[in-house]
Every structure is written in C-alpha cells, then in structure tokens.
C-alpha cells in the first residue's frame, strides 16, 4: 500500500505525470463506476448497483479508456486500485469512498485486494502510473514518434528496400554459382 505512495506523492511534477492526475480529474460519476471496476465487477453488476443502464456504465468506462490511449479495462482497474491506495485520491478529495454515490457501497473489496500481496500487480501498476497517458497503447518505438518520427519512418522503409534488394542479389548470386557448379560437375 505504501510502496506506490512515494512515487505518486513525489515533489516533482514528472512523478505525478502518469495516470494519477487523470484519475483525479474524473467526474464523480466516473469515480463511482471505477470504484466498482476496481473490484473487477462486470458492467452489468455495476449498472445494477448504481441504478443506471449498462450502456451508461460502458460509456463512462470508455471515456476514461479513451483518455488513457485505450488501456485495457483490467489494467485500468489495477491502476485505479493503486491510485486509491496511493493517498493521491485522499489528497485531492476525488475517488474512493468520497467519490462514490449514495446508495452504492464503498468498496470494501479494494482494501482486501490490496492486502492480498498482489506484488506483480503492484509492479505493473507502478510502471503504468509512471507512463504518460499518450504513451499507453503505443505500438511503435519512440524513434518513430514526434517531429522526426516521419523522417525515421521514411529512412526505415528505404533501409528495408535496400536490404531486400541486397538480399535478392545475394540469393541470385548464390543460385548462379550453384548452377555453374552443377553444370561443371555434369549433374544437371
């Protein structure tokens, strides 16, 4: 529980530049939903508990996923659990029991989950929280991003083309040498 706190509550702005500020900026309705998402509840269950439609629940979840570069729901749930446990939510007064609507139960399950020694979850969530939202869901290396990224992409295509042509020439050379050898030895 305390492991993530120093990182999130660090002095520099870069320490808090991950998902925690994004979670802090969620609306109270989104917090309501995410407290239950963090308990690994299905959209249907959440809708039943909050007394809203399932599509409204999905809409709120998708809005948050869109802000994180479409992070998978399970990972968001983990990150939100750690966000709640980090102390960030109590500092900003958002999320957790404070953000949950009346009638919905405060997530007792969260505390138990956090105490269950989910070390690997904690590690992956620490990594997630340290990521900039726009970095999540990226399928290309950093070198292909940004202003010089396009130039690097063009360069990569040219290198691949040159490599292919060189490979083809080597293959042709080998084929020619082999056929010469075979004709010399009278095998063909």
């Amino acid at each position, binding site marked *: 529980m305390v492991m993530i706190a120093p990182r999130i509550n660090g002095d520099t702005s870069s320490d808090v530049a991950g998902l925690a500020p994004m979670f802090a900026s969620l609306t109270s309705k989104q917090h309501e939903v995410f407290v239950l998402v963090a308990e690994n509840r299905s959209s249907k269950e959440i809708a039943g508990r909050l007394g809203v439609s399932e599509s409204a629940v999905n809409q709120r979840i998708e809005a948050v*996923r869109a802000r994180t570069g479409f992070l998978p729901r399970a*990972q968001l749930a983990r990150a939100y659990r750690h966000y709640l446990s980090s102390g960030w939510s109590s500092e900003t007064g958002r999320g957790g029991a404070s953000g949950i609507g009346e009638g919905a139960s405060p997530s007792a399950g969260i505390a138990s989950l956090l105490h269950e020694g989910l070390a690997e979850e904690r590690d992956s969530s620490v990594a997630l929280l340290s990521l900039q939202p*726009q970095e999540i869901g990226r399928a290309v290396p950093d070198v292909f991003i940004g202003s010089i990224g396009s130039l690097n992409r063009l360069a990569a*295509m040219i290198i*691949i*083309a040159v490599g*292919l042509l060189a490979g083809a020439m080597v293959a042709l050379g080998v084929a020619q040498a082999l056929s010469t050898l075979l004709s010399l030895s009278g095998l063909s």
Partner: protein
Amino acid sequence: MLEDLWFLRALVQVPLGALLFLGALWRGAAPERLLSGALFACLSLLAIYNRLFARPDLFESVDPIYLVLDVLLLVVIVGVALRANRMFPLWMGGVQIAALGSHLARITLPKLNPSAYAAMTQAPNYMHMAVLGLALAAHVHREKRAGGYPSWNS
C-alpha cells in the same frame, strides 16, 4: 513446371488478396483495412488488365500500367506508414520501394532477363500478403491480450 507455377500464381493471387481484405474488414483496424484494400484493388486491376490486354512481350519493357499502379500503391502505403500506430506498413513500404526498383532496373538494364523482371514485379505482391497476414494476426492477438489500442499516432 515453372510455367505451371506461374499460371497457378495468377489464379491464387487475387483470391488471396480478397481473403486478406475480408479478414481485415472483419478483424482488422483502419491501417489493416486501408492497406489490404489498396493491395486487393491493385491486384484486381492488374488481373483485369492482363485479361484484357495480354501481350507476350509484357516484361520485355516497362509496362506503364504496372508502373502507375506500383507508384499509386507506394503513395498509399507511405501515407499510412507515416501516420499509423503500426510497424507493418514500414515493411510494406520497403517492399514497395524495392518493387519500384525493379522497374528502374528494367529501364536501365536492357539485357535484364524478362523472367527476372517478371519475378521482381510479382514477388512484392506475395511479400505484401505475407506481411499483411502476419500483421492482422498480430493485431488480433494484441487486441485479445491487451484490449483496443489506437490505429494512428496522434
């Protein structure tokens, strides 16, 4: 034997392209759909062209239709490659640049064997299909493993 293979190639190329395009429409995202669609369109147009205007000396010189289609395909691939949140268009771009190199070789090397030129113009299509197939599989796998992710770099 080689002639049989060449004939078989012509028979399977367009259906393979169509399968890839349908697969991309079904399970792929925008980059996969765009590139498989462009490739399928290109293969179909070439098949129609070959059917209507077949000539025996097709690969004796640079055919303007082949050249124009290859250039158009390169423009589409590079356009997608520069913006997509994917690596595979870069491979397709490299392959397509090499395909254009074959036309350049035909122009600059008069002694180039027509069969070699034919192979150089046709092989990239199969490489495109292999790359697209792998990319589609990787995309489906990634979506299953980690959920949706953006098609384009913002």
